[in-house]
């Protein structure tokens, strides 16, 4: 166990998996020099057959990931910024999410699509979307969003081992903090939430980049005498509703924090489903703390206003407690 940044944890997880399983291949734009750092040294270690830089051609890349996976390889397709998922979206939505189904189960599609998502660094609208809701609605892909470096390692390993297409989405802006990362074999099952802090007055579900501000909000709420239970779902598709429902049955209140735009967000889905399952027990309507239905602005002052922070989370919790 050592302190590492999230990209280092991911890098370690990928390297361990590639060493373990020779059928794993990785490709993407500049994965060799790795501007993000998560694929650093993999080229040197696993060679040019298994680690390949690609041209800027997201359309064929996502199609190739599906084809190579169907033909027997375990594929990691690095798409860099999440917005480029849109560029390669045809083969994601029309092939990756559907091909096994359309073929009546004849193939498996062990693909890990990687991307960094979200705002917080003034890279503006075309590099800052949080598009996990779009992926969640596709039905045939899993969506993983680690909230800490340790979870990132355990989740990248299970994403790679999964036989279905998995989107592994790192928070770009606020995911770089250090955290404890277990050495060696450490695998977290997809679809299992973690209760980061127990509490009795309110359940706070925070996704990906929102885990950190939610932690801070819960700390400050505790000082003010409000006991919040903080849950990081870690994987939003499939979603561990049982853990959240259990918690809400105890607390009677739910706040969901999501960096996606509000309409049809993960937050909306969680609000709808958990409300359905906890109706009698909920003491107040579930609150969603999200980005409003706007693109991400460039100016830091605007970006800060748009992205939920601990203050907005605390405000939402306080609103529920009245």
């Amino acid at each position: 166990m050592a302190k590492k940044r999230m990209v280092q944890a991911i890098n370690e997880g990928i390297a361990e998996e590639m060493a373990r399983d020779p059928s794993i291949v990785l490709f993407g734009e500049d994965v060799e020099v790795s501007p993000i750092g998560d694929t650093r040294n993999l080229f040197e270690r696993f060679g040019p057959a298994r680690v390949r830089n690609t041209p800027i051609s997201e359309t064929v890349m996502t199609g190739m990931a599906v084809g190579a996976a169907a033909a027997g390889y375990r594929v990691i397709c690095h798409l860099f910024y999440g917005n480029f998922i849109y560029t390669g979206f045809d083969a994601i939505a029309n092939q990756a999410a559907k091909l096994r189904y359309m073929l009546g189960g004849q193939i498996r599609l062990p693909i890990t699509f990687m991307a960094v998502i979200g705002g917080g660094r003034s890279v503006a609208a075309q590099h800052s979307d949080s598009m996990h809701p779009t992926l969640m609605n596709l039905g045939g892909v899993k969506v993983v969003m680690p909230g800490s470096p340790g979870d990132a390692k355990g989740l990248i390993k299970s994403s790679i081992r999964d036989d279905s297409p998995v989107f592994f989405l790192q928070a770009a802006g606020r995911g770089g903090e250090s955290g404890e990362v277990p050495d060696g074999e450490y695998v977290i099952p997809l679809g299992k939430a973690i209760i980061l802090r127990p509490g009795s007055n309110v359940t706070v579900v925070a996704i990906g980049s929102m885990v950190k501000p939610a932690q801070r909000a819960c700390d400050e709420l505790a000082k003010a005498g409000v006991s919040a239970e903080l849950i990081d779902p870690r994987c939003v598709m499939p979603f561990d509703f049982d853990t959240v429902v259990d918690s809400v049955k105890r607390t009677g209140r739910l706040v969901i924090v999501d960096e996606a735009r509000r309409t049809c967000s993960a937050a909306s889905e969680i609000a709808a489903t958990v409300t359905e399952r906890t109706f009698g027990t909920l003491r107040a309507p579930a609150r969603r703390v999200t980005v409003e239905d706007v693109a991400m602005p460039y100016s830091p002052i605007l970006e800060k206003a748009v992205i939920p922070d601990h203050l907005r989370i605390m405000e939402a919790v306080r609103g529920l407690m009245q």
Partner: protein
Amino acid sequence: MENMRLHSSTDRQPNDAAPASEAAAPAATTELLLAMYRLMLLIRTTEERLAKVQASGALPGPVHLSVGQEAVAAGVCVHLTDRDWITSNHRGHGHFLAKSGDLPRMIAEVFGRATGVCGGKGGSMHVADVSKGILGANGIVGGGIGLGTGAAWAEQLRGDGNVAVVFFGDGAANQGVMFEALNIAALWKLPLILVCENNGFSEFSPSATVTAGEIWRRAEPFGVPGLAVDGNDVVAVWRAAGTAIARARAGAGSTLIEARTYRLRGHVEAEMTFLSKAYREDAEIEARRAHEPLMQARRKLEQAGITAATFAGIEAEVLAQVDDAFKFAEESPWPAVESAYTHMFS
């Protein structure tokens, strides 16, 4: 009930390893030509039956037939084994059959039955038989190109000399993905053969109105060989494909083949029930019918001494095979409703 098999995964044709040179272009033996003729006849007979059944209202979904284009599927696929991959488009029955896909289970799929190759979940636009290296027909124009490029990459990694062949239309040649594939195939020297079946139409648009220049030339800027071939001459297709496939197996990379053919039936069956006007002249169809591939092959075989009795025998065999397949499909049960909820994840 077993589908005709021209080859198994072990009996690769000897000419597969022929060098990629015009001079060395081999002549097709009469035996091979007869096998290809039989395959084309199987495709034709199957699809004409599908047309009839469609007209009777017995098919749940749309069917796109390749009548007139059979030489492309046949001439290419006789070079392939079950360990080679193909991807196809919405007009995929011919490719499926030429690649040794199971006929009865294909028909059952088009009927939407439980015994279909995809359990009734895919239908005509998604017929696939992965055990035969058929990664499937595809409903997205250009969709098979990315998949095939990925399969070619997988085979390059595996290193067994297997290849991937992508069948797509002239319309699909206007999707950007084709160029992205050509670029990567050139850079990585992928064992990828792009077979563009130019049948004169992109849906209801004559090719010239939506496709600038000649398709085979689109490979040149990438340093990938491109060539046009008479797609109604099964021997010409077979020869061009043989060269390209041998080249790919030898690690020398990709080829784009534009096979020029003609779609004798509609884009989709029953299209004139919903189109407000015709998009081509009947006379054009009639003129093109004179060049259709089966007749051409038959003429060559007659010249090589194949008798009317032999043809009649083949026809009877094929007919029986098709009859059996449709009977199998029609008698097959519908899928269980629960199967709609399986296979989203592995």
